[in-house]
Structure formats: structure tokens, C-alpha cells
């Protein structure tokens, strides 16, 4: 399965590098939303709950763009048929797509988080990074796992641009709550919040549950 997933992932990343359809769109959206918040909130800087909420809601909405595009090449160019004809474990497709989504989100955050720090954040972003990075990575795993599942589900529907946010956003509410709550003390300058372990634990639990669900049901999603 790993060999197949690696082949699909390599193919997906090569196509993304050539078409530049997902990561640039996600990044542009995120930066634009931060600029809009910068002017719309009419405040010099944000911190605490508001900063955390703005960061995470923007990242989640940017993820919707990536999730919507995740199966686009397969749908438009017959990639799923090519895979179904091969004697491979179909879960490899989910693994590859979830890993691609993880890479896209991480690439997005490499630009989005510093931009957020410059445009909106009051407290020092650099001091928050050692704890913020694990929170971002844990949230990315959950988002990628559920995103790949939702994208596969919506791939064969005509209204996928509507279906993806309708399915994805309610499912990621626990992830949003945990990630925003874990981030909130960091963005008011408190690097040693006592609840951090609890929220990181919840994020990890979410990741494990959705990875297991995806592995269990993905094969059936591809069935005729």
C-alpha cells in the first residue's frame, strides 16, 4: 500500500507543481482574508481569542479550496478508473490524497502564519512558534484525513463546490475548537497555558478517530 500511495503522491505533487492550482489559490485566499480583517476590524493588532479565531477560521476556509480540488485531476482525467483497474489497495489513494493535502496545508501555513504575524498579530509570533507548530501539524493531520474522505465523497457529485464545505465544515468543528483553544493563550503571550496538553490531546484523538474512519470506509466510497 505504501508503494502505491507513494506513486500517487509523487504524481499529485508533480501535477500541482506544474498546474499550481491548489496551493497558490489557498495562499492567495488566506492573505486576502488577512488583509480584509486588517482593514475591516479597524484595529492595529489582535491577540488572544479573536486572533486565534481569525487565524483558524481563515485556515479552515482555505482548506476547503484545497479539498475541493483534491480529486479534480482524478475526476477530470479518469485517474480513479486507472487506479481501480490496478491490483492495489484502494486505501492507498486516500493515504496519498491525505498526505498531499497535508503538504498543501503546511506549504500554505509557511506563508500564512508569518503574514498573520505581520498584518494582524499583536504579541510576538516568534515566541509562540515552538508550541504553535505542533498545534498546526496536529490540526493539519485531522484536516487532511477528513478532507481526503470528503473530497472523494464529493468527487462524483455535480455540486461538489457546495457539497465539500457542507460536509467538511461541520465535521471539523471539534478540530476548530481544539486548535483555536490551544492557540488562544499563545496569541496573548502566554506560552505555558495549563490547558494546552488537554487541547493537544483532543486534536490527537480527533486525528486518530478520523484516520481510522477513513481507512475503514474509503474502499466503499470508491465502489460503484
Amino acid at each position, binding site marked *: 500500500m505504501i508503494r502505491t500511495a507513494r*506513486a500517487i503522491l509523487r504524481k499529485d505533487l508533480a*501535477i500541482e507543481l506544474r498546474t499550481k492550482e491548489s496551493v497558490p489559490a489557498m495562499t492567495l485566499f488566506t492573505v486576502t482574508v488577512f488583509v480584509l480583517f486588517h482593514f475591516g476590524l479597524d484595529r492595529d493588532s489582535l491577540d488572544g481569542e479573536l486572533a486565534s479565531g481569525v487565524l483558524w477560521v481563515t485556515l479552515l476556509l482555505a482548506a476547503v479550496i484545497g479539498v475541493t480540488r483534491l480529486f479534480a485531476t482524478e475526476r477530470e482525467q*479518469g485517474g480513479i478508473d486507472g487506479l*481501480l483497474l*490496478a491490483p492495489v489497495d484502494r486505501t492507498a489513494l486516500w493515504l496519498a490524497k491525505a498526505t498531499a493535502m497535508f503538504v498543501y496545508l503546511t506549504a500554505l501555513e509557511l506563508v500564512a502564519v508569518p503574514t498573520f504575524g505581520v498584518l494582524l498579530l499583536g504579541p510576538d509570533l516568534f515566541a509562540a512558534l515552538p508550541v504553535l507548530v505542533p498545534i498546526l501539524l496536529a490540526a493539519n493531520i485531522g484536516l487532511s484525513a477528513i478532507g481526503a474522505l470528503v473530497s472523494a465523497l464529493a468527487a462524483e457529485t455535480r455540486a461538489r463546490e457546495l457539497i465539500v464545505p457542507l460536509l467538511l465544515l461541520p465535521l471539523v468543528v471539534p478540530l476548530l475548537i481544539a486548535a483555536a483553544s490551544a492557540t488562544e493563550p499563545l496569541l496573548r503571550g502566554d506560552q505555558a497555558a495549563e490547558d494546552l496538553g488537554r487541547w493537544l490531546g483532543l486534536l490527537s484523538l480527533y486525528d486518530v478517530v478520523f484516520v481510522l474512519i477513513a481507512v475503514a470506509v474509503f474502499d466503499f466510497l470508491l465502489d460503484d
Partner: protein
Amino acid sequence: MELDGLERRYGDRVALSGVVAQIEQGATLVVLGANGAGKTTLLRVLATLLRPHGGVARVLGGELPREAWKVRGRVGFLGHDPLLYRELTGRENLRYHAELHGVARERVDERLAAVGLERRADEPVRDLSKGMVQRLAVARATLHDPELLLLDEPRANLDPAAAEHLEPLIGRASGRTRVLVTHDVEGGLAEADLALGLRGGKQAFCRPARELTIAEARGLYS
């Protein structure tokens, strides 16, 4: 391959019904019928891409859909869609499919040479002509040396020289069992052992190709 009362529906619409056929190893079945007769649906059922909804479909020793895993990887499917990524080069596409099928990389160069595309192999598929894409699709469908070939208008977009060039891969000379969908009635009957006629999803006939007259076969289209 054995089909007995094969059925397939899309919602309430019956796409295939009561199809009965038996094909020996190495033989060719030509499937004839007007547009919408169920030819492509039949190929997709045999390729395990669609589940049959009734009857028996036994392919390469596997009963569909229960034993589809026995069939996957042993079938070469050449449909309307070339199943190639436009942004990747021909070589990259074939290497990707080689990895999915566990085929050695050397086979990719071998197939590219067999379809006459060695010199254009490193160009993105989107830059190739339709004929070249079809040749590449033939290379993709035969990359893993399938026992059964499912061919939907395999010579579409090919000039006569290219069509002849591909004969060792997809023609009778390949020695493989073949199911061939075509609108070229004369050509199809000439290279087939068995002819299956479909009309509105139902079987009109299934007879040895040599016993069928061109006029009878053309009757499917009237």
C-alpha cells in the same frame, strides 16, 4: 469468460439485460450496436469498474463482483478516456501505471518504442495529437501484459499506418482474449470469432462471426 443473463441498471434505467455469451481463451468477441445500446457499459462491467446487478459474469476465473480482485490487474482497458494525466509526460504516465501494476520500469521504454513514441515520450500529454494520445493509451492498457483486452474503438484517431503498428499489441496477433467494441461492422466481424449484437441494452444476437452477414449486423443500426 462467461456471461449468463447479465444485467446492469443506472437507477431505474436498464442499460444491459439478458446478455449471454461465452468466450474461449485467445478468442475475440466483437460487440456491435448503435449508440446507447450498452456496449460501453458491458466493457466497464467486465473491467470491474461497474457492478453487475443480475445474472452471472465470470471473467478470468473470477465471479463478478464478488471476486473482482481476481480480475483486476489482468485486464487491459482501453475506453473513450485514455486514462492519462495531461500535465504529465507520456513516460511519467506510463511509469505511474507501471508502479500501480508492479511492472518493471524497463517495460515503459519497451512499450513507448512499440507504439512509436520514444521521441515524444518526454512531452506533456496535453501537447500530443489525438492519435499520439491514443497510441500512448494503448501502451498504458497493455503495459502489464493483460490476459484480457477490453477495447472500445481502439483505432479511433489512428491513421492506417499507426493502426497497423499497434496490431501486435491489441490486434489478433497479440494472442490475447479480446472484447472489441466498434462501429466498423465489416472490420469488426473480420477479426472476431464471436459477434454480440446489442439493441437498447438487450441482446439481439450472439453468434459465431462467420455465420453473421454484414446486412444482419447493420440491422442493429436501423
